[in-house]
């Protein structure tokens, strides 16, 4: 893309004067004054290719017509887009394009939203072409994407998008001249990231989605703009429906934090809501079996039982767990309901699984519970450090920001990831990395320590830090002296020079953003790793520099909201510590009710209490601890021990199956509300279909129960809850189009530097003892797959076609070592359990490691031990050493 500069130039377009930064493309400059220049191959995301020749314009003093899409504006340019010459040129290009284009609009899914149709109409274009049209043989392309190459106008937008934006390079323009067609490679269907980008960017109907083939004309559809519920990136999507039927999802260029880009989950994963197995009626356990009931029966039953238990054992005998997939309104009301109507602080959410680690670290060091940076800072960064993200699969859209920063804006990328840098069918962020530390997830922390050590030894620290905070500085220095390079090299397999080079790159840059992903956050070193990364920013003086910051990625779409709404036990709404007297008072005043005084239990503590018999009842909303926690936690036994288990769910999960009452909940496609994405951007969720069956939004259920429990929390609509949230939580008082990230709190930093660092310095920086793995074993890691997220995605027919079951991903060298080939079955066993599964050989998996996608992980999860972080109470169970054996 031609670089624009800050220098402004004055140009004239059809007599209108416009000032634009020098280098702005003429086609963009024209758009600013409302002149739409027709085009096919141009797209603002892509490097100009000027191949369609549709955008020709006249530029004074230039003899030939020029393509507006590739000509940068320069001082004094006088451009005309509406002369006869230009008009004729446009018509003639259309005539050429129409020559080979079939007139099959009646059966083309692009009909009604096709650029070629629109321009032909605008120019009343016809073609004098009477020869034989070129015809391509139809080939099966893929289960989700359909190609009809006769319609292709060869603008190469799909190919360029796949390469430039996605970095996947799965599409090939094959052949030459008119016989060029877009294909994939090999004698098997397309295998790629299935981001749907090619479908979205094709200006004609050459590439379309199979999920909605022949289903509709655009004008039949109702559209709702909402936020994708699959990950913390918070992409804006447009859900298109026909009645209650979900037809298609797309995202408009320029819209949302994703700027129109989507991943497979967002684009092809929308069918989960309409899965036939959705719960449509309340269920009550009668004689040991869950039986259909009416809402009245179910709610009264629940309220009655809760009342009894409260009366007998006190409010603190009740606990609640909610999913970070719920809206802010629901999360907020859940904790308010539990705190006021029930009288307990035993509240937790899916943020506990890892997100809390990042936020607690940020609170401790910089005094915020949100990023101090945004996606835009990632785009503008000079140096990006990715730690344990596997970003393509976990947070694909944040991944696109990183790719853009590196590919387009030439940021330097440092990665501490377990990925082998190989090229395969998915993009691999390690391939773009300038300093790649390929390290098993469990050793991530050592690599971070290596960077800190290099910073200290190379004197890359902020000049006056040693004077201002000598105790911190000296403590750090001596702690790191304890750790030798030999140890580090032995533990990470990476030579000291590599750390030094990366540390120098980071310290020497102006804008540095550190992105931490779930592989770090959900690991045993989740909390300490984040602190160490923050140390790195502190030492190099970047922590509170503009454009610099620490960005832990949220896993669930609203994990950030879950913390901010106070649905983790240590926090009140606003992520204020539950121990803060002033906050308790302020909130009590607003709520006109006293807050319970107990300390509150986290998820694991609740389960322990349930097993011990002191916790009697639980509300579990959209979470499935039985399926997601390892055997060591004994979640099932704990829950069975309860006198009352109430589940609000879309599907009858393993946990719901144990419940006394199951209440059918509405999915995020069926309700209003807001989500707070990973960067702290609060965005509106809007319904695209009516709640399925008798399901209701979770907040309505809490509200109804609160009335029955005599602490009425009544709201006519979720907006009223949002109003209450806004009045209570500072960060929510303004919902703007761009988030204003909070600033680093200097006083918090000073506290940290004075003594805050002390309490766990020793545990974080200590000599490394190396445990060797016995022969015949692999390091098993539960990972996220690009095609799935949580359990919902496994109900989505589109995604199931790409990845229908969990397969153990192993490296080619391990395949050779264990004499395995693709599709073979293996038995994995650990001290905790065993499972059998099929293997999938993937180049990107490092030797000695095996990855299993946790969305299919019920069986796998049983193989793991569980470690609980003493400070953040995060249970980690993502890595285990297992032995692997081929089975018939």
């Amino acid at each position, binding site marked *: 893309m031609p670089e624009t500069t800050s220098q402004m130039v004055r140009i004239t377009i059809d007599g209108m004067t416009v000032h634009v930064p020098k280098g702005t493309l003429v086609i963009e400059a024209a758009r600013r004054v409302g002149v739409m220049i027709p085009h096919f191959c141009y797209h603002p995301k892509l490097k100009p290719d000027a191949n369609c020749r549709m955008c020709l314009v006249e530029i004074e003093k230039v003899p030939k017509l020029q393509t507006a899409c590739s000509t940068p504006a320069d001082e004094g340019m006088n451009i005309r887009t509406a002369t006869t010459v230009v008009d004729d040129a446009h018509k003639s290009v259309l005539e050429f394009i129409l020559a*080979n284009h079939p007139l099959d609009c009646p059966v083309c899914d692009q009909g009604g939203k096709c650029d070629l149709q629109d321009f032909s109409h605008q120019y009343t274009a016809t073609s004098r072409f009477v020869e034989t049209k070129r015809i391509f043989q139809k080939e099966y392309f893929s289960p989700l994407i359909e190609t009809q190459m006769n319609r292709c106008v060869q603008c190469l937008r799909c190919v360029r998008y796949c390469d430039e934006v996605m970095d996947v390079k799965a599409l090939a323009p094959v052949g030459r001249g008119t016989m060029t067609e877009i294909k994939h490679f090999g004698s098997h269907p397309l295998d790629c990231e299935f981001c749907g980008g090619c479908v979205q960017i094709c200006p004609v109907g050459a590439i379309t989605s199979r999920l909605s083939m022949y289903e509709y004309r655009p004008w039949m559809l109702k559209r709702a703009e909402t936020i994708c519920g699959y990950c913390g990136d918070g992409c804006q999507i447009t859900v298109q429906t026909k009645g209650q039927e979900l037809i298609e999802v797309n995202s408009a260029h320029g819209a949302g934090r994703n700027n129109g880009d989507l991943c497979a989950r967002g684009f092809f994963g929308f069918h989960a809501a309409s899965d036939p197995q959705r719960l449509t009626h309340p269920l009550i356990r009668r004689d040991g079996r869950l039986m259909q009931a009416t809402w009245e029966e179910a709610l009264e039953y629940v309220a009655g039982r809760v009342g009894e238990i409260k009366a007998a054992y006190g409010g603190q005998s009740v606990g609640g767990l909610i999913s970070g997939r719920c809206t802010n309104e629901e999360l907020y009301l859940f904790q308010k309901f539990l705190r006021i109507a029930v009288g307990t602080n035993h509240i937790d959410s899916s943020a506990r699984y890892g997100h809390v680690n990042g936020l607690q670290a940020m609170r401790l060091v910089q005094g915020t519970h949100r990023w101090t940076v945004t996606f835009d800072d990632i785009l503008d960064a000079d140096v990006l450090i990715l730690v344990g993200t596997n970003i393509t699969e976990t947070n694909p859209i944040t991944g696109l920001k990183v790719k853009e920063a590196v590919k387009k804006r030439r940021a330097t990328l440092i990665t501490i990831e377990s990925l082998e840098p190989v090229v395969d069918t998915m993009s691999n962020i390690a391939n773009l990395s300038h300093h790649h530390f390929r390290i098993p997830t469990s050793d991530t922390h050592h690599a971070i320590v290596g960077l800190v050590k290099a910073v200290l030894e190379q004197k890359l620290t902020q000049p006056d830090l040693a004077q201002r905070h000598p105790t911190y500085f000296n403590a750090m220095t001596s702690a790191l002296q304890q750790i030798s390079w030999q140890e580090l090299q032995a533990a990470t397999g990476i030579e000291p020079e590599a750390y030094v080079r990366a540390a120098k790159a980071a310290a020497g840059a102006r804008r540095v953003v550190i992105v931490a992903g779930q592989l770090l956050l959900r690991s045993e070193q989740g909390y300490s790793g984040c602190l160490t990364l923050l140390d790195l920013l502190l030492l190099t003086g970047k922590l509170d520099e503009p454009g610099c910051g620490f960005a832990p990625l949220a896993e669930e779409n609203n994990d950030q909201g879950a913390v901010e709404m106070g649905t983790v036990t240590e926090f009140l709404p606003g992520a204020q510590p539950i121990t803060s007297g002033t906050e308790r008072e302020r909130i009590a005043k607003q709520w006109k009710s006293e807050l319970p005084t107990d300390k509150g239990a986290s998820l694991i503590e609740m389960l322990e209490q349930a097993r011990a018999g002191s916790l009697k009842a639980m509300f579990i909303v959209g979470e499935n601890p039985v399926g997601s926690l390892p055997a060591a936690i004994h979640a099932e036994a704990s829950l069975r021990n309860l006198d009352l288990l109430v589940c609000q769910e879309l599907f009858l999960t393993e946990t719901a199956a144990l419940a006394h009452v199951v209440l059918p909940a509405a999915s995020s496609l069926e309700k209003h509300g807001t989500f707070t994405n990973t960067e702290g951007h609060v965005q509106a969720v809007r319904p695209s279909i009516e709640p399925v069956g008798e399901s209701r939004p979770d907040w309505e259920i809490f509200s109804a129960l609160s009335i029955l429990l005599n602490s009425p929390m009544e709201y006519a609509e979720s907006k009223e809850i949002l109003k209450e949230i806004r009045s209570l939580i500072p960060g929510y008082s303004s919902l703007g189009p761009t988030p204003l990230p909070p600033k680093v709190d200097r006083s918090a930093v000073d506290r940290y530097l004075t003594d805050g660092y002390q309490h766990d310095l020793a545990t974080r920086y200590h000599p490394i003892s190396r445990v060797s793995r016995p022969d015949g074993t692999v390091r098993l890691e539960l990972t996220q797959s690009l095609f799935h997220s949580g359990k919902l995605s496994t109900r989505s027919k589109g995604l199931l076609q790409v990845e229908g079951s969990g397969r153990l991903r192993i490296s080619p060298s391990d395949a050779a070592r264990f004499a395995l080939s693709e599709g073979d079955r293996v038995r994995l066993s650990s001290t905790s359990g065993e499972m059998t599964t099929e293997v999938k050989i993937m180049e990107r998996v490092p030797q000695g490691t095996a990855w299993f996608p946790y969305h299919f992980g019920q069986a796998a999860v049983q193989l793991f031990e569980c470690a609980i972080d003493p400070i953040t109470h995060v249970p980690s169970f993502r890595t285990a050493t297992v032995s692997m054996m081929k089975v018939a």
Partner: protein
Amino acid sequence: MPKHELILLKNMMQPGYTGSLTDYEKTGGYQALRNTLGKIAPADVTTIVRKSGLRGRGGAGFPTGVKWGFLPKDYQGPRYLCCNADESEPGTFKDRQLMERDPHQVLEGIVLACYAIGSETAYIYIRGEMVLGSKILEQAIGEARVAGYIGKNILGTGINVDVWVHRGAGAYICGEETALLESLEGKRGLPRIKPPFPATHGLYNKPTVVNNVETLANLPHIITRGPEWFAAIGSPPKSTGTRVFCVSGHVKRPGNYEVPMGMTVRELVYEYAGGMRSDKPMKAFIPGGASAPFLTPAHLDVKLDFEHVAAAGSMLGSGGVTVMEEGTSMVWAALRLMEFFYHESCGKCSPCREGSSWLVQTMRRILAKRGRMEDLETLLDLCKNIAGRTVCAFGDAEVAPIQSTLKHWRQEYVDLINEAEAANLIRPEPVGKP
């Protein structure tokens, strides 16, 4: 027979001259290199070339010294020279001879050019089909490397120039300089949008010069004998030096003839190429390869230099002179070239891609006596809509045969169409199937 001094073909005309390093050195080869490297400042070499008036022999005729001057002066980092040996223009076969018969002359030119532009790496992009040529060049490079003319620390001057032969793989468009660079980068040979020009963003985005084989082969002579000598040859001031014209078609003695620019076509065809092959008179000729518009015998006295050929409505191009005798169908001839262009259109730009298939199909129909009178207007219209509307000059080239034959021999088209009408062969055209 030559009535003038040969420059480029001189050595190979010597009896027994094999093109080996020893042979080349015996004729004074690599003296220019010895006298230049480390002795004349690179910028001065550029000045010498500019003063000589040497213009590119690849087709566009851009002044070589001026092109070199476009390279950024203060750029740190690699620069590249690409020798364009893709020679694919129908009617052109001179570079092949220069490379296969006197490879060291080309190599010396390459090293001199590298020295002038500060490049340490040169790639000879030779068309894939010329396997023999590439082997001969490889061998010559090996000899020159051993003798210290190529490689590290050339002749002890501390100057490094590596030369590599890179074979194309069958794509005419890769002769276009930016397509050549794409191809050299291992990609599809699609021309790039200009600006930026290769001088600033060329191979691997680095400053790059692309020069034709014949252009480069002239350099040792210009350096040795001085720019004034060269500038006096041919048709000064604008067309200096000789050209190796490739004469093909219906002449007695087709082949490569090196003559000073400014010679008339008549002289070239009738004196050098021996005149027409039979008693049939000349009907048409193309003065500069397939991309150059056809001319008629009325243009026989046009001087073969850049300006005069352009003034006559054609172009000197690559120097491929193709002669056609009376009796040749001009519609057929134009179609044959059109088929070439259709086959070779890379497909990047819609007008060229779609236009070339459209033009071919229409021309085939006319030749098959199924044409209609309005086809002629459509043809002209399409030509007009292709030329000047594409990324590279291929678009201008592909319409030349049709436009020029329609201009000079429209009656032949009309006759074919009339025959069609007379034979009552016209029937409604089927609309293309979707």
